[in-house]
């Protein structure tokens, strides 16, 4: 026999689907099946049950072998390296709960550390752009109920946010969009003919790295000003045609992803895309939204925001928050050799940072808090496995449109395993002692 847990939140991507149904055994210990989830979400729930899962902290020995330890020993080591360091980096936070993030920030304030989340390699440049010219946006339900113009610019939801198109953006029938997909025109801008582009009414196969120019061309087209014959490999007629399609809608939205945030021009691409959106509000209603990756990277930005005033790359070394990506951002801190200890939680820089930055993590005292074995844990001195947030423990998370949703606990973690929040609390208490603040 088994029972079904409903309204389960999927702790994978920023789409934060909250309609999953998870089948668990009667004793509530094992997950037997997952419904309504995409392939990735289902795998996340099912893999949490893996037999070969690490369930105890382990220290890496000089010869590369691992030695098991207790959570207390792990907390002691973590507190020590953070308390001793002149400039510790506490990175990650995007795959854990806001409660754990908040506890982590207290540690960072006590140890005067740098705190950064995965926006650093995802939508950090979007945040810079938002700080430069703002962000006209909306919640995903607005898109579902009203949007008749959808633009995917440098993002590929068919692969990165698999249920986005069916829940919110292309297929759903909403209050004013009763015909679903038939109510909407879809424009995709991507240098590849992605599986998302294959669904588009208009696919602009842009010359890679020329998004800034093409976005600028759209703004010029709105104002019916002179345009060169070709911009970014797209003929001006096609640009004007797409520009008119945007203007002629009643409610439009631009979704953008790492295709623009990680390409040359970075924040400027987003800056110009936001300007395009702002311009379109002179003719109709338009919004723009970053396709946030990790399920709670948005939450990390929110908690950092209300506690310190900045959404990522926060430097607390002087006892108060400072912020300036390029100086206080993880990649630069690591590549420039500015930090002398690294703490990683809820992310995998080992896999997702350029190797030059990963090498710096390997050089200094380091701890990796992650349920999985990852390249980061592989190069860290200490690996602390923890319960899966959103599977084995609850906690608050924020969707890509900043809507907060309370993640649910579905099953118990393996015997004796701690949650992020529990482990961080141990570390916080120890750090307080070391800093004479207990």
């Amino acid at each position, binding site marked *: 026999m088994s029972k079904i847990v409903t309204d389960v939140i999927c702790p994978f991507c920023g789409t934060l689907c909250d309609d999953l149904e998870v089948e668990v055994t009667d004793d509530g210990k094992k997950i037997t099946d997952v419904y309504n989830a995409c392939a990735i979400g289902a795998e996340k729930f099912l893999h949490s049950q893996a037999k070969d899962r690490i369930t105890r902290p382990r220290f890496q020995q000089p010869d590369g072998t691992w030695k098991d330890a207790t959570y207390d020993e792990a907390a002691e080591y973590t507190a020590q390296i953070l308390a001793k360091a002149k400039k510790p980096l506490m990175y990650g936070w995007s795959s854990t709960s806001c409660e754990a993030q908040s506890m982590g920030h207290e540690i960072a304030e006590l140890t005067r550390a740098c705190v950064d989340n995965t926006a650093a390699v995802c939508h950090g440049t979007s945040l810079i752009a938002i*700080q430069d010219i703002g962000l006209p946006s*909306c*919640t995903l*339900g607005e898109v*579902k109920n009203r949007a008749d113009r959808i633009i995917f610019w440098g993002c590929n939801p068919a692969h990165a946010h698999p249920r986005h198109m069916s829940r919110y953006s292309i297929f759903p029938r909403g209050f004013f969009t009763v015909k679903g997909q038939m109510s909407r025109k879809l424009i995709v801008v991507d240098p590849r003919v992605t599986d998302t582009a294959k669904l588009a009414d208009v696919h602009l196969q842009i010359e890679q790295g020329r998004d800034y120019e093409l976005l600028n061309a759209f703004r010029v087209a709105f104002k019916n000003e002179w345009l060169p014959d070709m911009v970014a490999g797209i003929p001006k007629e096609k640009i004007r045609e797409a520009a008119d399609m945007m203007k002629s809608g009643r409610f439009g939205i631009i979704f953008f992803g790492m295709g623009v945030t990680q390409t040359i021009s970075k924040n400027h691409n987003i800056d110009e895309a936001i300007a395009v959106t702002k311009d379109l509000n002179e003719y109709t209603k338009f919004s723009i939204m970053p396709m946030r990756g990790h399920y709670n990277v948005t939450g990390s930005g929110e908690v950092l925001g209300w506690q310190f005033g900045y959404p990522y790359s926060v430097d607390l070394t002087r006892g108060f928050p400072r912020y300036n990506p390029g100086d206080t951002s993880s990649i630069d801190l690591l590549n420039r050799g500015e930090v002398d200890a690294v703490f990683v939680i809820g992310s995998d820089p080992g896999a997702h940072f350029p190797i030059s930055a990963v090498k710096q993590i390997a050089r200094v005292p380091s701890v990796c808090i992650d349920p999985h074995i990852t390249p980061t844990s592989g190069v860290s001195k200490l690996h602390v496995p923890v319960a899966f947030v959103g599977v084995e423990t609850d906690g608050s998370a924020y969707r890509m449109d900043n809507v907060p949703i309370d993640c649910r606990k579905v099953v118990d973690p393996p015997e004796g395993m701690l949650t992020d929040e529990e482990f961080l609390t141990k570390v916080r208490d120890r750090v307080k002692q070391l800093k004479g603040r207990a």
Partner: protein
Amino acid sequence: MTEYIIKNGHVFDPVQGIKGDEADIAIKDGKIVKDSEVGKSAKVIDAKGKTVMAGAVEIHAHIAGPKVNLGRIYRPEDKLFTSTPTKGLERTGSGNSIPSTFKTGYEYAKMGYTTAFEAAMPPLFSRHVHEEMRDTPIIDEGAYPVFGNNWFVMEYLKNKEIENTAAYCAWLLRATKGYAIKVVNPGGTEAWAWGLNCLSIHDPVPYFDITPAEIIKGLIEANEFLGLPHSMHIHPNNLGNPGCYETTLDTLKLAEGYKAKNKFGREQVMHLTHTQFHSYGGENWGNFESKSKEVIDYVNKHKNITIDTGNVTLDETTTMTADGPFEHHLTGLNHLKWANVDVELETAAGVVPYIYSPDIKVCAIQWSIGLELALMAKDPMRCFITTDHPNAGPFTRYPRIIKWLMSAKAREARINSFKNSDKVVSATHIAGIDKELSLYELAQMTRAGPAKSLGLSGRVGGLKPGMDADVVVYNFNPDIPVTDPEQIETAFSRAAYTFKSGVEVVVNGDVVNNGNKRTLWVDAKVKDNPLVMRDIKEKFLKYYSMTQSNYESLGHHFVPNPFAIEVDATQ
């Protein structure tokens, strides 16, 4: 709990009618008690030559939630070089116009505020609002969910279904742990979802076939049907435009004939917020002028209305409101960064930085209007001081506003140093007003008045035995005439002592205890209403992007220390 006795201070308490006489205030178990009820061991606070008042009550400020945090996140320049390091019990603080949650709690407490209400909670984002309030130390807080552009409300009121509207409001207050019915640009914000607006109370709302006037009257009726502690709290249509005072008067008139029905001693049926932004004359920015007199005269004559001022403080600040179309209009004027969030089925919000420069005529006129309202109000129990933080200026400027209100000399100095002082004087009444606010009136406008309007008069805003022991002592001696107005600003900037629920939280301007902050919300019970529950279920299935079960689940970790005010509307 430690007992306290605050001795020989000049007490100002409108609840008991004490107007500065020397008296002792005794504190026991979190409450004010008779002097005789505290023991010999009670800690004595010498308030000789000082001013003693109840903790102040903030009735309208944007201090927690999605648009506040959007403002923080997108304005790094609002914090450059001004953040404060961790100090004793105090976490690090940052932000000038939009302080971090920590700084918000500390600053209020240091100024003697012990209760504050977040003025606009988007229901879909209620968790966020509560998470920020949880991280705002010391002060009790509550939040007003917005209803004025809500699809349920508009659909029920289109058919004049007051009881269903009330049942829905009760459900939403419970689901979001909200405190009152807030209305922002009724209908106009829904229209904004299509890039439109409703600039008068008779403009029809696109598709919903209802007018702002019908929404406003309907929500007043629903509010009184439920008998909530606070009244319908409104930010009317047409905010901030030359000539908007006419829309304001039209809006106020909608309250005529309604009488408050509640068990909390509240007398008004409508609270008009940040009235300054709604008291503008002229047809354009060129002949822009004050219509504060027209508005306050009407308010003075009608007892079923309370207002707050929304004083412009002449600072660089960040505007933020659920009035989405207004922020879009504003960014068109000052070309500064514009953020907007439309919220499915419910509301919207916009954020734009703004600099109120004393060198700009319009800004100086706005400054005058806010002060005029406070100075011309006949009943200080119905006119409250706010800055609509951070819209007209940061709440940390209250001491400066108090200075301007209590000192004609300070006002004169300010007016004379305006770049266009002649033009400003001719467009306003401020120069002709010599009234100086008394400390008793100040206590009415910042304590007893807002507490009564919020239906909290039995608990806070006064020093009567039995009330919460929220007490503040200021280094201000009413017996000594003020030579330099700066003395006023200094005294009210940093309290000598602040007590919150009987806990000594601030001493000589420093935080000594993080108190035991509570979240106030209203639990209104109504008759079972299957129709409304079915409508709710259907809307979640079809139109919301979140499931009803996840929308309704507000875990303990969001509201760790709730204080529910019960209302029974089942009869």
